[in-house]
């Protein structure tokens, strides 16, 4: 479904992604974790070309993300992206946030787009907030609307860039639950997250990154109980016992 072939990315002198080669299968749920600055966000942002790459290839569903002939807008419509900061459109209601893309890209009429959006909002448990503006919603609710919005073009792949990092602790659960349900429905998902509970329960695989490299690829069980790489062992020990 998603294939990285020797992908390299630089920010000026800084080598942000180093020879990334990895394949993510259809229906697979992959959690990407690693210390801050390790290149996790950069990695998933290259998939829908929010970040260009300097060398290598990224292929999604048979399409080269960086090909010059690619219809980038159509390509992006097939990849749902959820941001750390939600990035809901504040001038639109929850419903309008979800109808914006279908109305302007799929040419859905108002009624059909509304019906679709209500179904999606219902799926994230927020149909009663359809007419609320983002400013009137809690962080957790905003992120759930953002997930519904990302689903509106019915993409086969969803990317999550630290979706719960900007949330108050009591709101993390509601967002993770929506993500878990999506995974159970067979969605192909790549989640950059530090929620180890989510990784354990939902992920098929964990990728551990440091300094722009994927250092470890393992099942959640192996990763948490038998980490191989020294940096992974250090990382897990740091998040488990912050006080020493």
């Amino acid at each position, binding site marked *: 479904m998603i294939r990285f072939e020797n992908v390299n990315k630089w920010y000026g002198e800084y080598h942000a992604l180093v020879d990334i080669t990895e394949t993510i299968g259809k229906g697979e749920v992959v959690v990407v974790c690693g210390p801050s600055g390790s290149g996790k966000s950069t990695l998933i942002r290259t998939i829908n070309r929010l970040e260009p790459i300097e060398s290598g290839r990224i292929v999604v569903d048979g399409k080269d993300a960086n090909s010059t002939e690619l219809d980038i*807008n159509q390509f*992006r419509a097939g990849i749902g*992206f959820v941001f750390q*900061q939600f990035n*809901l*459109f504040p*001038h639109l209601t929850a419903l309008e946030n979800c109808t914006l893309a279908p109305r302007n890209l799929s040419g859905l009429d108002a009624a059909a787009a509304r019906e679709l959006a209500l179904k999606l909002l219902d799926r994230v448990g927020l149909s009663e907030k359809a007419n609320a*503006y983002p*400013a*009137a919603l809690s962080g957790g609710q905003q992120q759930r609307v953002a997930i519904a919005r990302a689903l509106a073009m019915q993409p086969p792949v969803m990317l999550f860039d630290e979706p719960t990092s900007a949330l108050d602790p009591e709101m993390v659960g509601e967002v993770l639950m929506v993500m878990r349900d999506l995974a159970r429905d067979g969605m192909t998902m790549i989640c950059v997250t530090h929620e180890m509970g989510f990784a354990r329960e939902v992920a098929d695989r964990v990728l551990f990154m440091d300094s722009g490299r994927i250092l470890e690829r393992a099942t959640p069980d192996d990763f948490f109980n038998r980490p191989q790489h020294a940096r992974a062992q250090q990382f897990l020990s740091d998040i488990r016992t912050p006080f020493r």
Partner: protein
Amino acid sequence: MGMIEVIQTYWVYFLIGQFPDGPLGGLTLTIVLAAGGLLLAFPLGFALAIARMSPWRTLSWPVTGVVYVVRGTPLLMVLFWAYFFLPSITGQKISQFSTMLGALVLFNAAYLSEIFRAGVQALPTGQFEAARSLGLSYFAALRLVVMPQVMRNMLPSLVNQFVSTIKDTSLGYIIGLSEVSFIASQINNLVLTKPTEIYLVLALAYFILCFGLSRFAFWIEQSHVRSHLSGGERSKMPRPVKRTLTEQT
């Protein structure tokens, strides 16, 4: 001649000048000039702002230069140039109205481009990224996501600019344009005995217009805040309280 009598005699002249027997003037001309000077400046202002933000230096640098020159020049000087200098080199006389309108459009475009640029740059980049991630094109993202928010954020600055423009039209007096200040001085010349009262009425006319506009903008902003916090049901929300600086800290 009492003040009441002066007003009774000259109020129509004050409002519309010699119209319909002569050109439109007075307070109406002032408003027409200010509104026209601002509205016509919009496309030019947008174009200047987009050029200034463009990654191509051959475009952005000269435009930045033009904006700085216009902003660093008094409107009065531009008026003199347009009214005395342009005809002497082109050999064509331009009407006072066109001169004034042209100067206002040029001036407002420079200021609007800065207001617009600030509005776009104040918007978090995540808004544009989110729009593009959904599959919207560059221009669709601008039109559907960036512009509506920028316009809303620009509203207070736009009203300020409109208020400034209304006051700037009084410079038309210098080139003999029959806007409201010119008309007021004409009335004063006819009446002779009531300069204080006549210029007080003039001041009041400017004040009511400008203050009314400011209040109108404030009202729009507040009703906007209320509707966005309420989930579409306005009535449940308390009125937003006015904040002073100390309360915010």
